[in-house]
Each structure stands twice: as structure tokens, then as C-alpha cells.
């Protein structure tokens, strides 16, 4: 691409020539593209994701970058949806010439971006938990899938709390439907009964009708899987407002969002691969560095932002192993390298996905999450059998 641009520089115009000249002076940076939902549903969590990416980039640059080249972060707003993602991916890959994309996004945005990734042929590390089974030769995932996450909550509800009837509520998009598909099958396999399953559009903020149905069904437990952020918060608020008392398992809430909901979040069960309370030196180091860098501006690190941090380091390890930023060797190396981060040792060795330690927690009145149980190295299961 650079060759073509250089060849045509005469006609591209002065601006492009200057830009090329400027970039040739400094050591050519490695550009990390972060398409993320700064607006729309994900806007509640996106700033924390950007912060952890910034920390990783700063730390790596302070230690001399990767292969002597500095990292440069390029953030683009994908509007949390498919249409916005298209523009963001186009811009990052073809305009900013990102060497790799590392980001947390909605499933809608990821799906829309993948064809563009395939056209641009750049590695893409997806750092958001999601509904699973998204497979592309350029894609790696370092966050959880339903096979790792659903069982702890459902098992706890059925075995410890005696729940027999369930009601499922989700946002109507790939993640919402994918998670609840898995959850429904799992509950039925375990002998539970599904009283209802309802979906609202991804940007819905009025849940009145669905809450009425939940109230009428009166289930023992409610499991929700909405788009992260706004829909999740409005659903929780309105459920609390309606005085629904069923056990409440939320598959899409992260610690930061839970804190933002205040007292409404109290009592929610969550299952996560990261909680700020994880008692490990790496986590404490990470939290201290974040606090030092962002101070009062710090957004609570969470299950969506920490995989972003680790994703940048996994990319660093892969580039160093491949001794190049070229796509093919980096893709090959990504499955082989590992990194010890706040969540422990992460290696995306299982069909492009990573075995993770999962925690079952319950949100407390002050917004903190109390860990009820933990499960070591839960396998992601068969995600992409055709990819190694």
C-alpha cells in the first residue's frame, strides 16, 4: 500500500507528500487501531477500555516499544453498531494504516468489521466477552464465551438457591441472542424450566412491556443478556422500579457499570473473568499503575478493559516472536505466546480462544463485587474447530 501511495505521490498532492516525509523521519511507529463504542450502547464502558489501552501503550513505549518501534494508538468511534463500525474499520485500516486492531466492541460492530479486516488483512484481537463461535483467519479472542460463563450462574441458582423456573431477557442482536441460546439449552439440560424469553432492540430504553411479562410469569430467577452499558442499566433500573424480586443473573454487566447503577445493582449475580478484588501481585501492580496514570479520571477497570490491556501485550509478544509486524507470522505467533496479566496467564491457544479463570460474584450495596466461588482455567470449548 505504501508503495502505491509513494508511486503516485506526485498527484496525490502536497499534503500527502508532507505526511509521508514526516513519518519517514521518526522511527515508523506500529499503529494499534482501537475501534470502540464511544457513543451508543457501549459508551458506558468504552472509556475504560481506551484507558487500559493507553496504559499498555505507554508502558511498552517507556521500555523502548516493540522491535525498536514505538506504539501509536488510533482510537475510532464505532457507534456501538454495524454502520458505525464499517466507517471506523475502514478509517483505521485503510486511512490510518493500523498494523493491528485490538479492541472491545459489540458483536454487531465486530461482525461488520470482520469483512473489512479480511480485506485489509490485519490481525484483530477481540477483547470483549461475546456469544462465541466467531471465526476468521485474522481473529483472536482473549475474553470469555458462554461455554465459560453461563454455567457458574445457572448452577449456583439451581443448586444453591433451588431455582427451577427461569425467564430470559436480552437485547436483540448477536450477543443477546447467542448468550441466551446457550443459556436456554444449558438450563433445559440441567432440568430447569424456561417461562419466557424476550428481546428488545439493542438501543431500547423502555422495558415496560417485557417487565410486565416477567411479573406475570413470576420466575424463580431472571437471566439477562443485553448490550453492555445503557440498555443494561435501564433494564436493571426499571426491574428494580417494578419491584421484581426474582434472583437476578446478569450476563453482560461489568464491575464499572454495576458501580454506576448505584443501589439498583445490589444483589445482582455476575460471572466474570476479572474483578478488581482479584488478589494477585500482577493485578495490584496494574491497578496502581492505572490509578497513577489517570488519577481522578480513572474509570473502574473491568472485565472488558482488562482484556484490552492484556491484548496489547499479547500482540507485543507475538510481534517479538515473529520478529515482524507482517500479518501471517504474527497470526501464527499469537496462538503460541502468553502473557501474565491481571487475570493471570492468558494464552489464546484453544481454537483462537483462551482458557480463563472464572469468578461468580454478587454485587454489594457499595458497588463492590463479593466473590462467591472461583473456577480455574475453564476451557472455552469448541469455538472454531476449523482454525488452529
Amino acid at each position, binding site marked *: 500500500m505504501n508503495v502505491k501511495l509513494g508511486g503516485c505521490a506526485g498527484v496525490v498532492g502536497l499534503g500527502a507528500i508532507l505526511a509521508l516525509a514526516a513519518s519517514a523521519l521518526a522511527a515508523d511507529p506500529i499503529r494499534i487501531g482501537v475501534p470502540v463504542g*464511544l457513543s451508543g450502547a457501549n*459508551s*458506558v464502558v*468504552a472509556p475504560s477500555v481506551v484507558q487500559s489501552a493507553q496504559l499498555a501503550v505507554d508502558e511498552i513505549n517507556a521500555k523502548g516499544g516493540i522491535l525498536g518501534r514505538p506504539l501509536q494508538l488510533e482510537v475510532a468511534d464505532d457507534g456501538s453498531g454495524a454502520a458505525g463500525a464499517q466507517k471506523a474499520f475502514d478509517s483505521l485500516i485503510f486511512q490510518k494504516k493500523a498494523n493491528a486492531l485490538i479492541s472491545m466492541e459489540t458483536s454487531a460492530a465486530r461482525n461488520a468489521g470482520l469483512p473489512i479486516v479480511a480485506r485489509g488483512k490485519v490481525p484483530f484481537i477481540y477483547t470483549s466477552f461475546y456469544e462465541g463461535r466467531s471465526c476468521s483467519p485474522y481473529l483472536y479472542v482473549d475474553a470469555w464465551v458462554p461455554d465459560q460463563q453461563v454455567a457458574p450462574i445457572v448452577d449456583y441458582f439451581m443448586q444453591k438457591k433451588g431455582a427451577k423456573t427461569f425467564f430470559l431477557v436480552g437485547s436483540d442482536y448477536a450477543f443477546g441472542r447467542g448468550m441466551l441460546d446457550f443459556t436456554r439449552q444449558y438450563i433445559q439440560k440441567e432440568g430447569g424450566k424456561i417461562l419466557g424469553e*424476550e428481546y428488545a*432492540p439493542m438501543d431500547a*430504553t423502555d422495558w415496560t*412491556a417485557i417487565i410486565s411479562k416477567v411479573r406475570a410469569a413470576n420466575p424463580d430467577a431472571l437471566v439477562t443478556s443485553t448490550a453492555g452499558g445503557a440498555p443494561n442499566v435501564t433494564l436493571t433500573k426499571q426491574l428494580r*422500579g417494578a*419491584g421484581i424480586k426474582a434472583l437476578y443473573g446478569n450476563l453482560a454487566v461489568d464491575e464499572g457499570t454495576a458501580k454506576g447503577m448505584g443501589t439498583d445493582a445490589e444483589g445482582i449475580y455476575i460471572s466474570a473473568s476479572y474483578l478488581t478484588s482479584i488478589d494477585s501481585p500482577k493485578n495490584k501492580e496494574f491497578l496502581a499503575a492505572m490509578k497513577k496514570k489517570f488519577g481522578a479520571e480513572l474509570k473502574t477497570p473491568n472485565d472488558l478493559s482488562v482484556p484490552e490491556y492484556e491484548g496489547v501485550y499479547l500482540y507485543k509478544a507475538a510481534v517479538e516472536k515473529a520478529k515482524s509486524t507482517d500479518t501471517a507470522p504474527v497470526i501464527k505467533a499469537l496462538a503460541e505466546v502468553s502473557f501474565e496479566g491481571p487475570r493471570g496467564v492468558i494464552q489464546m491457544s484453544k481454537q483462537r480462544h483462551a482458557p480463563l479463570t472464572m469468578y461468580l460474584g454478587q454485587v454489594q450495596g457499595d458497588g463492590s463485587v463479593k466473590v462467591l466461588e472461583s473456577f480455574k482455567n475453564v476451557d472455552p470449548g469448541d469455538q472454531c474447530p476449523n482454525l488452529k
Partner: protein
Amino acid sequence: MSAQFLDIVTTAAIFYIVAAGLLIIFGVMKIINFAHGGFLTIGGYAALVVTELGLNPWLALPFAALAGLVIGALVEHFVVRPLYARPLDAILATWGLGIVIGQLITIAFGREVQFVQSPVQGATAVLGESYSQYRLILVLGAVLLAAALAAILQGTRLGLMTRAVIMNESLARGLGINSGLVRFASFSVGSALASLAGALITPLSSVDPNMGVPWLVNAFMLVLVSGTSLVSLGIATLVLGGAQVLISAYWSPILGSLTIVVLAAVILRIRPQGFARE
């Protein structure tokens, strides 16, 4: 059953609050204010500011109304007034204004979704159901709003002038009524009501720079079927809002969200004056 009844009544109340400001402007000026969504958003952010300052959440209401009043007055003077003779252009210009308001808010407050503290929380027992207290309060709010508007229209001089302009502007002008003043006052008050509505609905959900847009279209359709009457607006919100609740509950929430626009479009096709008398 009674929960459904409460859903219908509270939904109608919310729509009534949201559409009242638009109706006042439509009645007097015969233009649709597409910046209505922008004014709702202003109200939402007024509530956000109150929350962030740690003030009593109820203060959001006067604060929002004041912000709407001032901005509405400016907009009427600089944008709407030159377009009196071009109603279709007025729709477009106010839509552009809605974009401007949204972007200014984005620059000032960021594009992310934020949350406002609710003045009351939790549920209360009513008709044998435990029901959201805040939604019930909104019913009271809608009734108070309707009563206040009726009192102003029926009991004050400005109200009398306004009714005259609504009925026949050129005749009113012939009788020496300053219709320019009535238009100015109506637009300002309509905008203030929109912002007030924005502050009232945010505790139910969230604020973001585009929060007003989904409300705008429903409010627009409700006003078109209500004509210029506050009473028909009440009927329209109950009928169409009720239909929305029932279709959402018995069919699908997604079709439910279409109820108002589709029913209103059909009603207008069959009966152009909608719920208003001929």
C-alpha cells in the same frame, strides 16, 4: 391485569408530558418543531447537571424548564420567525437545530450514555400490584400539567389571545391581538415544556445526546392526530399509548414500538383531523 392498566395509564401520562410542548407550538404556529427532541435532550442534561452538583433531584424540573424557555426564546427569534410563511422549511430548520443542540451537548458533556439520579426509587403497592413509584408520580405530573395549561388558556389574558390565534390568526390580528407576541410566548413555553419533559423522563432511563430523537417521532404523530386540542391529546395518548402497551404485551415489544406511528398514520389517512373535532 391491573398491572396492565397501570402500564397503560403511566405510558399515556409519559406521552402526554412529552407531546404537550409540541402541541402548543403546533396549535399556535401551525409548524412542527423538529427541535423538540433537542429540547427534550436539554432537559435530560439539565437533570444530569443537577445530579452532578449533588442537588436535590427535584430541582432538575425548574432548572430544565428555565433552560428550555431561554433557548426556545432565542430559537424563535432567530430561526423560526423568518420561516412563518414556509412551514415545510420550518420543519427542516428545526430538525437542523436539533442536530446543532445534540452536537453542542456532545461537545459539552461527551457522547456517552449517562445516568441521572431519580428523585424517588422503588415500588409501591397500588391496586394489589407492586408498581414503580416514579411512573405513578408521572401520572400525577401529567394531570397537573394538563390542569395548569388549561388554567392558563382559559383564565389569563395571554391564554385568551393564544386561543384566538389558534382559532383564526388573521382574524385575531385584525382584532388587534399581537400574534407575533403570542407566537413568541408559545414557542418559548412549548420549548420549556419539552425540556421539563426531558427532565421528567430521564430517571426512567438514561441521558445521551440523541435521547430525544426516538421520542420526537411518537410525539409528532400524537400531535398530528390531536390537532390543536389538549383534550384530544389526552384521548390520543390513552388510545395509542394503550394500544402500544397491549400490542407489546400480547404480540411483540418491537411491533409495540411501531404502534403509535402506524396507527396515527392510518387514522390521519382515514380522518385527516384525527381525534380533534371537525
